[in-house]
């Protein structure tokens, strides 16, 4: 177990490959009526290709802002976010987002929602291939039977499955999930975590995911970024989670390492950076 206090400089971890996605001294300041409000301050972070990274922190610590700068919906006030050596300036399908509120189009069916994404991103593919990709990804999340249902007829868990299928169907390099399972019941949540891991194991895209749930992060992530409290939030700690993959929830939970990591995260969130607004 190697825990790094304070974000390392890119060279410290000595990654085998050149950093794939990099935050370079990123700050974000929002202008408000009471003057500038700094949300994030001096974020340095390198993410490797194919890495599953979770971000945790109390509300208001700028987690969403951090990820929005990867998706391109927000741009840094200072510093830059670099993917493949190119500075990110606007949204694009190489950095697909699973939105907090699903953001599915309710006038379409599950199938049509996924197809629309595939068709928008790869309009030149032959129609039968686009259909095949759509069906394949709906099948991955177990929605073959519900494919022709309107979004309004689907439960929360099924909507989230459609959103994940839509996101993965366009084969993004980076998948961004903003608290994807926060609104789901415990059982559906565990099912979806497992499905997400299964699919991710086949595609191995880079994943950035915001969560409030330490157990979720420990089950899913390679590394967990823990944010200090805002304003001017920084990266407090980055925790390595080196359970072997493919992971099995029961096996992980029997590992003594699990509890030491869990306690370390709890200590960070509820002792060292405790928040009035306890979640």
């Amino acid at each position, binding site marked *: 177990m190697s825990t790094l206090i304070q974000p390392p400089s890119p060279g410290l971890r000595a990654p085998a490959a050149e950093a794939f996605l990099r935050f370079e001294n990123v700050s974000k300041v929002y202008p408000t009526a009471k003057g500038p409000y700094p949300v994030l301050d001096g974020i340095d972070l390198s993410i490797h290709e194919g890495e599953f990274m979770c971000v945790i922190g109390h509300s208001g610590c700028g987690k969403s802002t951090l990820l929005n700068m990867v998706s391109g*919906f927000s741009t840094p006030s200072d510093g830059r976010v670099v993917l493949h050596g190119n500075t990110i300036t606007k949204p694009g399908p190489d950095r697909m987002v699973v939105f907090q509120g699903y*953001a599915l189009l309710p*006038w379409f069916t599950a199938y049509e929602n996924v197809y629309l994404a595939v068709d*928008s991103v790869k309009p030149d593919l032959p129609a039968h291939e686009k259909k095949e990709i759509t069906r394949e990804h709906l099948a991955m999340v177990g929605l073959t039977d519900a494919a022709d249902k309107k979004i*309004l007829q689907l439960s929360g868990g099924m909507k989230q499955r459609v959103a994940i299928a839509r996101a993965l169907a*366009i084969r993004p390099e980076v998948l961004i999930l903003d608290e994807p399972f926060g609104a789901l019941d415990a059982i559906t949540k565990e099912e979806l975590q497992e499905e997400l891991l299964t699919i991710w194991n086949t595609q191995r895209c880079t994943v950035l995911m915001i969560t409030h749930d330490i157990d979720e992060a420990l089950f899913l992530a390679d590394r967990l970024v823990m944010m200090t409290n805002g304003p001017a939030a920084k990266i407090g700690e980055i925790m390595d989670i080196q359970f072997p993959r493919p992971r099995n929830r029961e096996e992980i939970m029997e590992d003594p390492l699990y509890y030491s990591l869990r306690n370390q995260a709890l200590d960070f969130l509820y002792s060292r950076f405790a928040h009035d607004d306890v979640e």
Partner: protein
Amino acid sequence: MVPTSSRRPGASSSPLRWLARSSGNWLPPLLGIGGFLLLWQILSSLQLIALPAPSSLFTEERTRNLILYPFYDRGGLDKGLFWQTMASLSRVAQGYTLAALVGIAVGITIGLKPAINRAFDPLFQFLRMVAPLAWVPIALVLFQNNQPAAIFVIFITAIWPILINTAEGVRQIPQDYRNVALVLQMSNRRFFTKVLIPSALPYIFTGLRISIGLAWLAIIAAEIVMPGTLGIGFFIWDAYQQNYVGEIVLGVIWIGAIGLILDRLMAWLQTRISPGQ
């Protein structure tokens, strides 16, 4: 008079029982309308009001003929109520269609471009407060001719709810949907057909439904002051000038019925096109 309770003897056959069970739905409106007509009948018979009694619509020869023969055509303006209505409806159809096309197009534009909205909103807010009747002289000056003037009056009356609701519908497209379009880098055309129109459709239909009622109100006003036009509005005005009060009453009932049918038609269309939204 409408018989209110003659169908409710205590028989026990099943259609009658069904009637009794569902009576909560149809009985109150029936009693309300029946009561109103009864009151009117009594006030007229006692000569407390100058209007003829509702029963006189059937007893008086002129109005009875109009009710019984809606399709007669003796040339000129002397035509049955059906032809009068069709003349008015065709004007409404032309003005309303024009209003829908222009209103939706302009509404989408100002919904998407806040700057254009800021430029024109005061003007639109001002123009929509001008009563249909006030447009009539302007329309006559502009077009020098009854028919296009009437269509213009309908157009200018009906366009505002369509325009304003469409713009609101476009502004109300959830940010999430816009973000999806952004991250997928949808073409403008795709965004328009797959996101914008379906999302704004309930608002557009609300505008269309308000406007069909307004258009129908406007045509009557426009026709009344345009002498010599075939149409239900001028029919009433003509009856007034010749002191056929029964015909006025019949015309008003007819107008109300047509307006109600138009409104229901739009409501039905709305449920067909955007169900569950």
